[in-house]
């Protein structure tokens, strides 16, 4: 079977949880022939994974490099179709979400048709980005903006915060970005038996094009919630509010349209289902598929460090909220003066890393709390702590949690994403952004070795029971077979949860 795996900003050009999962999938299902489609910034990103032999091809789709291709003018019929599609597309950018499920579904279907019209325009030789940036399109977008305010009334709560008039500057900025994001619609559709998107959002455009052209089944996995992360990016962001309205409306409409058209949806935690159902996903086509690890690669620790140590393993990133962990550690030190905090991970956001260093200095934790850089050996990193902490504000179903659990370490985690589903009753799950709660949990564990060991044993067993790689691969293999068959039979794939 030929499977195309589509991802944005991850495999094979970046490290991180989703890339690990992609690599596991391709390695773990050698009976399939794979092709990876990577949505990237400019196509100059190096490949950072050793590619398996059954990965036959990697196609990159640069989203943000300057486009220079010369396109032909589409025929009149295609242009006519495009103008109709553009109208619906513009409406989706300005319309607030409809709270009524039936009408919300109609909104999403209309947007899906608009995307198909844009794809056919591109397939006919048109340049979507250029058409969106034209004066005519900008004027239409301004008109639709005014229409919404006229229909709902300027004081309507759904329009709170919106400027009265959409300026050309804001409209042009938004459509320039959206035009780049739509580039996957303009590349030749991929040929495969199944197109598997590693996330929602722009990746699904590749699958949609294949579905419209070759009727290829489409599967979406969601580790985190793509739309939720786009929303979080725009909390207190620099973009003008009108631009944020247009961009987030595009992302919301796209995610909803993808749920409509997907043949199967695989949230990687029960938590994700809430957002997916809220945005129109069909529960009859959803199966929860947890991430899995190979337990033999994460052996249980036989000893504990000499000093009471809290460990973090992951990216140095604002979403991980390491400030909360460092502040919590300062509180831990009041009751466990010889405690240590070791933070392992690569920093992509260097200013954030510097802010962590500055916070450590300001809280007088230099020496006790250390940024160790990337961990060459993750197992050794987990083993170097008595407790493993994760204080993220947003997560999907993080590998670091089940890896640490498999290593026989007790977790202190924030209650985000699927973390509580992973940890269950084998660790402490506390509210995010609450240093005192994190500190209480860590202190309790550091001061109670019996509790710590008991939870650690149960944590490893929980991983063996529920979150192994073999279970995960079996579930996906089964789902591929059923998607490639003429119709889904409605039964839950082996290893998946309804």
């Amino acid at each position, binding site marked *: 079977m030929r499977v195309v795996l589509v991802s944005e900003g991850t495999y094979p050009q970046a490290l991180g949880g989703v890339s690990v999962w992609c690599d596991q999938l391709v390695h773990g299902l050698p009976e399939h022939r794979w092709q990876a489609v990577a949505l990237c910034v400019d196509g100059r990103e190096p490949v950072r994974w050793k590619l398996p032999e059954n990965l036959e091809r990697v196609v990159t789709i640069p989203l943000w490099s300057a486009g220079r291709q010369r396109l032909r003018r589409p025929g009149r019929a295609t242009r006519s179709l495009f103008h109709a599609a553009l109208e619906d597309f513009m409406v989706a950018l300005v319309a607030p979400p409809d709270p009524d499920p039936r009408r919300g579904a109609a909104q999403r279907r209309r947007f899906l048709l608009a995307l198909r019209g844009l794809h056919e325009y591109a397939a006919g030789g048109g340049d979507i980005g250029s058409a969106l*940036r034209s*004066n005519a399109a900008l004027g239409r977008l301004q008109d639709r903006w005014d229409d919404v305010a006229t229909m709902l009334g300027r004081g309507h709560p759904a329009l709170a915060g919106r400027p009265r008039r959409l300026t050309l500057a804001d409209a042009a900025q938004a459509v320039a970005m959206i035009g780049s994001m739509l580039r996957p619609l303009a590349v030749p559709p991929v040929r495969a038996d199944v197109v598997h998107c590693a996330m929602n959002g722009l990746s699904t455009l590749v699958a949609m094009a294949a579905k419209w052209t070759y009727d290829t089944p489409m599967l979406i996995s969601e580790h985190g919630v793509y739309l939720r992360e786009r929303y979080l990016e725009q909390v207190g962001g620099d973009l003008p509010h009108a631009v944020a309205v247009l961009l987030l409306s595009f992302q919301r409409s796209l995610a909803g349209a993808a749920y409509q058209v997907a043949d199967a949806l695989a949230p990687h935690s029960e938590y994700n289902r809430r957002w997916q159902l809220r945005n129109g996903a069909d529960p009859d086509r959803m199966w929860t598929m947890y991430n899995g690890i190979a337990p033999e690669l994460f052996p249980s620790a036989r000893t504990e460090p000499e000093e009471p140590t809290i460990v973090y393993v992951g990216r140095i990133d604002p979403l991980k909220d390491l400030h909360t962990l460092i502040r919590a550690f300062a509180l831990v030190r009041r009751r466990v003066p010889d405690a240590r905090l070791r933070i392992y991970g690569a920093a992509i956001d260097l200013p954030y890393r510097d802010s962590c260093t500055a916070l450590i200095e300001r809280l007088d934790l230099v020496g006790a709390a250390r940024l160790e850089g990337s961990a060459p050996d993750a197992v050794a990193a987990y083993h170097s702590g008595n407790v493993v902490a994760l204080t993220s504000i947003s997560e999907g179903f993080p590998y670091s949690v089940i890896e640490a659990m498999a290593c026989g370490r007790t977790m202190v985690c924030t209650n985000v994403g699927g973390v509580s589903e992973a940890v269950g009753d084998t660790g402490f799950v506390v509210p995010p952004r609450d240093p005192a709660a994190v500190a209480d949990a860590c202190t309790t564990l550091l001061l109670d070795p019996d509790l710590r060991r008991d939870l650690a044993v149960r944590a490893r067993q929980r991983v063996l029971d529920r979150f192994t790689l073999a279970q995960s691969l079996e579930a996906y293999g089964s789902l591929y077979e059923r998607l490639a068959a003429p119709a889904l039979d409605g039964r839950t794939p082996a290893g998946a949860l309804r």
Partner: protein
Amino acid sequence: MTVSEVRPTSMASAARGWATASTIALPIVRPAPVPDRPELGTDPVETLAAEVRAASGDGRFVDGLHLAALLEARGVTDRAARVRYGYRDVFELAESVRVRLDGPAVGPPSRPPRRREWRELFHGGLYLLPSVLFPAVLAAVPRSPLAAVVVAGLLGWVWAGGLTWLAYQHINQGDDAAAGRLLARGAVCGVAVAAALGAAVAVMSGVAAAALLVPAVTAYQLASTVLVFYRAEARLVALMSPAVVAGGGFVLAGWWPPTPVIAAALACTVVTFGVALRRALRAPGDATPGRLRPLMRGRWGTFALVVLSTALLAALVLLPQAPLLAHHFEVLLATLPLVVSMGFVEWRARRFGERARELLHEAWGPGGFRRRLWWRLALDVCACGLVAALAGAVVLAGLREAGRLTPAAQAMAAASVLLAGAVLLVFVLAAHGGYGRLCVALAAALGAQAAAPFLGSVALLLVLLAVALIPSVGRVRQYR
């Protein structure tokens, strides 16, 4: 209730009709009423709204999902939404909180900050600077160095134009160091090419001085290009001032020997060239080696048009002047208004682009934007012509006073006035990337010189450039 079920007000109907001139079906509905606030002893939702307002900066959220994402990131779960706030889930709670945020009043649209810079206004003086030295050169060289002056003028102009365009490709990628290195290497290569051409001209014309004159003039042009690129005009003036004083002294005194003046000019040019190279090589950052080729992939055609359009403009301006150098000095003086007004033209060209970007932040649609830009462009063309006309009036008055005012000088002054406006349009069209259209207009005007007087060809150029600008002046994406 769908929109088609909503009975629109007459204003709404009018707005829709005006907006689309056809039927549209907005799938927009009045969202369901926000759930009533639960009856709790205190009002934790108000407290939560206050926390959100403090955490989010401006308190503005695109929709309820936007706020729900923030609430979850702050630890609010479905359970907390039920137990603590009395709502079904985080999504419902977020809708309620968002209504209470009563986001801040929307202020006027933000505008890009205006650069209050006037330095371009002095560029005219910089371009005039070498002409102070020409009398000394003419006195020192036994035979007319016409060919050398034309070759140096054309080469320096075209080389500087192409070099700065390439350097800006690096700047646009944020690679200042690569831009500096390119400018330095390009300037050295330019002088080397000029030396070779100067030697060739010396051999062919029999004017030995050409071997020195061509590279020296080119070196000054490229040094001034580099220093202007880095906004170091004051340094350029300071470095060249001894030569200017010597050249001015030669003209005013009338009896100074020309050789020391030329020696001073050469020395100043060498020092200025060295300073310019040093400035370019000190650009911050580490240049990424081998970046130009991938950067220019697919752009060499544009680069060729940039070079061609620069060459055509240089030819259009310089070729009619060259024959005047030896025998019609009064007509040559009548070109000074164009040189003097070039700084003003550059300033207006920059301001035109800035004004266009400011207009994008105002409440205009594309039609209003286009009309205002054309109006602004017409005013700027007139202003450039007016400045050149004022300078021309001074020159013509001087010639009249000296008894050397001729019809040819008057025609040249008039052409300079039109050319000032035309050059503004050249800058604007180049800023739009319309190099192909620019080449066509310039080539047509240059061809017209064969059949029509210079004034006529410049008038034609003005009209052709205005026509060439029609597709792009009102196009919003040209100004982003």
